């Protein structure tokens, strides 16, 4: 259970950040940081168990039928990552307090950040791959929000879009890969998957699975060829870059590879795909980083390069390489986060990130400079710092593999070259920024940052040093437990020492150092060579690709759908015919065995009305008002037939819906042409006529055949159980509020969404208002006839009483919340018609939005109420209570649900009708005014 609290706490922290925003930045960060701090404490409480190699689990059944559980686990690897995510997250929160200026929405920033943190801990703690994937997607979404935090800047929006597109596409590939894996293994449970190495690797789809999962990991971790989104994501505020693009999000891909290491690694395909990608990324990133004049650009490419290094290590597939990879994850997170923060400080206090202007800053900010220098030395792999240790391990591992056969020697050579470039750009970061002359024309005079802005950097740099000098004492156990989790078995023999004796890896290190210095001080030569290549702007390339894709899909859509209703309906009906005709031909006789019901004159009259009016609607469809009236006749007859065939509930519903519909259409009709011209060519008319005659015949035949045959339906079950299980005798209502209550809940939600959508759509609309009717006769002068006002006013109390009555008896007799809601709406709308908007608005103080949302809330709370008694969602409860003088009455929780339906129906229908009606009045601008207030 404790594990479940970790994502829950960070998630609540994001809400806390929003609510404490008004208290100011310091209070906001202090309160919202409590939540991840508690989460971190929960994780740290398990330290002993994790170091004793226990695996802590928490599982709650969620959708067992789909193999979905809410399931969390804590082993060495997730322990390590959780600590990185939460601890660095806390440091970044402190840092961002000083980084963001007072006028920026700090609450929103922290809310996004904590939501992102939730997603990250979700990934690392998940014990179900689908759940992990869910959190994975959540990181893409939240990182989109974070990168575009300065949403007034176009580069931030572009960078965010690109990151979302690339990582989102990778997420889809990952989902496909995980689904395949789940199918092969037969479970989405991580425990099961991790124990199915043979099964997965021997399955036919192993290669596809591997590629799909790797695409997911590579896109997230900015590996070649997907790395270009990372530099563009640098448009984010620096705390975001420090958090997402050094310690967490980009490490999610690495985490995935490490998580899947026990099952996917160890094959030829894994080695080739992962190590070659890693090596390419390592080299390209290190090379490009040297040429970036932007501080954050340099760090971004350096991150790309270091991620490549970790990927390469994982790709080598040996046990020791995996240990080195885990070690480098820790080291890279510490030094890169501190470097990003230092870059942010420099940017913040000097106003520029351009290394061509930033020179000689050591004089102005000596402490920050020293910290940054130590961190970049760690990045370069200088002895006594943590970066050196993992780099030595990396060199050792590159020397000990032989998978490329006779050209295996190339890997250590390339690794040394990459390391040399890494030394070169680290040197540039130090020498160019802090020394090398005096500052260019900077917007501000550089100075030291506020005291506490530097604290996170100091903490991280101190860690770099301590880990670098006393590796075994500080991270030994953490590394061991995480490595065991990655390897899924025993730990290979290794020891963390600074001095391993004079050996080949040390020679490589020395070569890299010397080479790096040589490259840096002769960088002008390289700059000149690089200038020969036209600089590529990935953003433009990406935009063009997106545009091409969009054009192609539009072309495809236009080919299929011309936007003509006639055409769409024709194809729909044509297909329906194609599928229904053959089975109907197989039927021997149309009529079944059931006897015909006796025919009486009323039915003949009703059927005549129905047929004549339906046909007349088609014939007179050009005259819209006339066809509307004809449709009302059809609706009336249908309602009577419902009553006649023992469906009083349906009759009541149909009647009230008819009234609301006609009002709605009349409201819309005012703004529309009264007559429609006939556009169809004779050929089209023939086509449409024949298809509709055919489909009419088929539907008629089908109905007749169905109704003349005996049918066993589910109705018997409801008749038998409505009273017993739902506590009501009106089966229709019991089905609505109890048996299928979840459906009803969904439907009222959709209704509410539709109402809000319509409201939003017409909120500021101004439409042409005709001044005369279709025959050119001007409108009548009397807006609100007196008689009409009086009669309508009298209708209101009557209708309210009836709706109350219909509502209350609904559980046992025809009626219920839906019908009652419609009756109330009609009664209110009648007042609008009779008295006009201006008269009514001050008199009816109903906010329809509030009504609608409280209705939904009531329905939801009634549904959730069942949880208190350990019952499923929307399980209804009922009992009989004896009230003096009134007698025994039945109380059912379904009543509360029905009340929710009632309020939602009133709110939604009134929101649509009153706002559509208000379009012609002075009230149409109301939403704007309300916002202004």
């Amino acid at each position: 259970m404790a594990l479940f609290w970790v994502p829950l706490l960070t998630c609540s922290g994001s809400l806390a950040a929003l609510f404490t925003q008004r208290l100011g930045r310091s209070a906001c960060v202090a309160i919202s940081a409590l939540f991840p701090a508690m989460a971190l404490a929960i994780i740290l409480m398990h330290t002993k168990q994790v170091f004793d190699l226990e695996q802590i689990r928490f599982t709650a059944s969620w959708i067992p039928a789909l193999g979905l559980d809410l399931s969390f686990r804590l082993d060495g690897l997730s322990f390590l990552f959780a600590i990185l995510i939460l601890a660095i997250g806390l440091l970044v929160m402190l840092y961002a307090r000083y980084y963001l200026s007072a006028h920026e929405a700090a609450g929103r920033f922290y809310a996004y950040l904590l939501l992102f943190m939730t997603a990250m801990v979700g990934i690392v703690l998940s014990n179900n791959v689908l759940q992990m994937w869910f959190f994975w997607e959540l990181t893409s979404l939240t990182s989109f929000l974070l990168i575009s935090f300065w949403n007034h800047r176009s580069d931030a929006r572009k960078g965010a879009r690109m990151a979302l597109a690339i990582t989102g596409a990778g997420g889809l590939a990952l989902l496909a890969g995980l689904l395949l894996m789940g199918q092969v293994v037969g479970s989405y449970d991580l425990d099961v998957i991790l124990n199915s190495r043979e099964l997965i690797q021997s399955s036919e789809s192993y290669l596809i699975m591997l590629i799909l999962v790797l695409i997911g990991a590579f896109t997230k971790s900015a590996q070649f060829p997907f790395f270009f989104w990372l530099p563009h994501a640098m448009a984010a505020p620096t705390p975001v870059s420090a958090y997402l693009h050094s310690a967490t999000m980009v490490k999610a891909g690495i985490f995935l590879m490490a998580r899947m290491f026990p099952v996917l690694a160890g094959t030829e395909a894994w080695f080739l795909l992962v190590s070659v990608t890693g090596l390419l990324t390592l080299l390209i990133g290190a090379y490009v980083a040297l040429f970036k004049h932007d501080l954050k650009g340099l760090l971004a490419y350096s991150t790309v390069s270091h991620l490549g290094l970790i990927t390469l290590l994982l790709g080598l597939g040996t046990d020791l390489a995996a240990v080195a990879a885990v070690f480098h994850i820790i080291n890279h997170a510490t030094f890169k986060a501190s470097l990003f923060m230092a870059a942010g400080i420099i940017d913040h206090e000097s106003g520029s990130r351009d290394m061509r202007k930033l020179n000689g800053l050591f004089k102005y900010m000596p402490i920050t400079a020293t910290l940054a220098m130590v961190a970049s030395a760690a990045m370069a792999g200088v002895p006594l710092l943590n970066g050196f240790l993992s780099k030595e391990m990396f060199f050792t591992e590159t020397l000990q593999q032989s998978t490329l056969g006779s050209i295996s020697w190339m890997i250590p050579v390339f690794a040394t070259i990459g390391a040399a470039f890494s030394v070169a750009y680290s040197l540039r970061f130090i020498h160019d920024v802090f020394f090398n002359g005096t500052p260019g024309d900077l917007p501000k005079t550089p100075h030291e940052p506020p005291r506490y802005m530097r604290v996170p950097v100091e903490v991280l740099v101190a860690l770099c040093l301590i880990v670098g000098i006393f590796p075994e004492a500080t991270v030994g156990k953490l590394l061991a437990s995480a490595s065991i989790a990655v390897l899924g078995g025993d730990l290979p023999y290794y020891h963390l020492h600074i001095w391993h004796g004079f050996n080949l890896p040390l020679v490589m290190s020395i070569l890299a150092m010397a080479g790096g210095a040589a490259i840096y001080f002769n960088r002008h030569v390289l700059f000149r060579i690089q200038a020969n290549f036209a600089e590529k702007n990935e953003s433009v390339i990406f935009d063009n690709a997106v545009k091409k894709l969009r054009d192609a899909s539009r072309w495809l859509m236009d080919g299929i759908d011309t936007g003509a209703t006639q055409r769409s309906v024709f194809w729909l009906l044509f297909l329906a015919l194609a599928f229904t005709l053959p089975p109907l031909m197989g039927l021997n006789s149309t009529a079944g065995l059931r006897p015909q019901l006796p025919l009486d004159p009323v039915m003949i009259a009703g059927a005549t009305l129905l047929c004549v009016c339906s046909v007349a609607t088609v014939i007179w469809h050009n005259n819209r008002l006339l066809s509307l009236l004809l449709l009302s006749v059809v609706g009336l007859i249908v309602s009577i037939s419902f009553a006649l065939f023992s469906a009083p509930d349906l009759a009541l519903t149909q009647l009230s819906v008819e009234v609301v519909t006609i009002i709605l259409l009349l409201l819309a009709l005012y703004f529309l042409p009264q007559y429609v011209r006939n556009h169809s060519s004779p050929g089209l008319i023939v086509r449409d006529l024949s298809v509709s005659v055919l489909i009419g015949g088929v539907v008629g035949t089908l109905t007749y055949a169905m109704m003349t045959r005996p049918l066993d339906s589910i109705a018997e079950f409801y008749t038998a159980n409505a009273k017993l299980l739902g506590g009501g005798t009106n089966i229709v209502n019991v089905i609505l509020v109890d048996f299928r209550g979840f459906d009803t809940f969904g439907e009222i939600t959709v209704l509410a969404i539709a109402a809000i959508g319509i409201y939003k759509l017409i909120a500021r609309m101004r439409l042409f208002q005709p001044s005369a009717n279709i025959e050119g006769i001007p409108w009548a002068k009397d807006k609100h006839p007196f008689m009409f006002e009086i009669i309508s006013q009298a209708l209101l109390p009557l209708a309210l009483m009836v709706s109350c009555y219909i509502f209350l008896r609904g559980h046992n007799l025809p009626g219920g919340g839906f019908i009652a809601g419609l009756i109330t709406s009609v009664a209110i709308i009648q007042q609008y018609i009779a008295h006009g908007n201006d008269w009514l608005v001050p008199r009816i103080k109903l906010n329809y939005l509030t009504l609608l949302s409280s209705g939904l809330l009531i329905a939801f709370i009634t549904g959730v109420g069942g949880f208190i008694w350990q019952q499923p969602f929307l399980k209804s409860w009922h009992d009989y209570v004896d009230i003096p003088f009134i007698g025994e009455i039945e109380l059912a929780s379904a009543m509360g649900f029905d009340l929710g339906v009632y309020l939602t129906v009133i709110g939604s229908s009134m929101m649509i009708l009153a706002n559509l009606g208000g379009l012609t009045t002075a009230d149409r601008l109301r939403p704007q005014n309300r916002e202004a207030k």
Partner: protein
Amino acid sequence: MLSYAAIFVSTLIGFSLLLNLWRFIKGPHMLDRIIALDTMYINAIALIILLGIFLETTLYYEGALLIAMLGFVSTSAVCKFILRGDIIE
């Protein structure tokens, strides 16, 4: 006895519904059609009440009540539309 009366009256009302339909289709003015529709609503009330009498149940009463109460609303809305175009102003 009552059921015979119910059958007889409902036959008459069915016939009057057909006459309503005739007026509706023939017109000539929109006003004729609106009145025809309104009369159809009235006849529908009668039909539903008669059904209740015939089946000896009160279950359908609310249906008739609803038409009596709300049929007026749609008729008046259409009239307002003819008169002013804009039904809520």
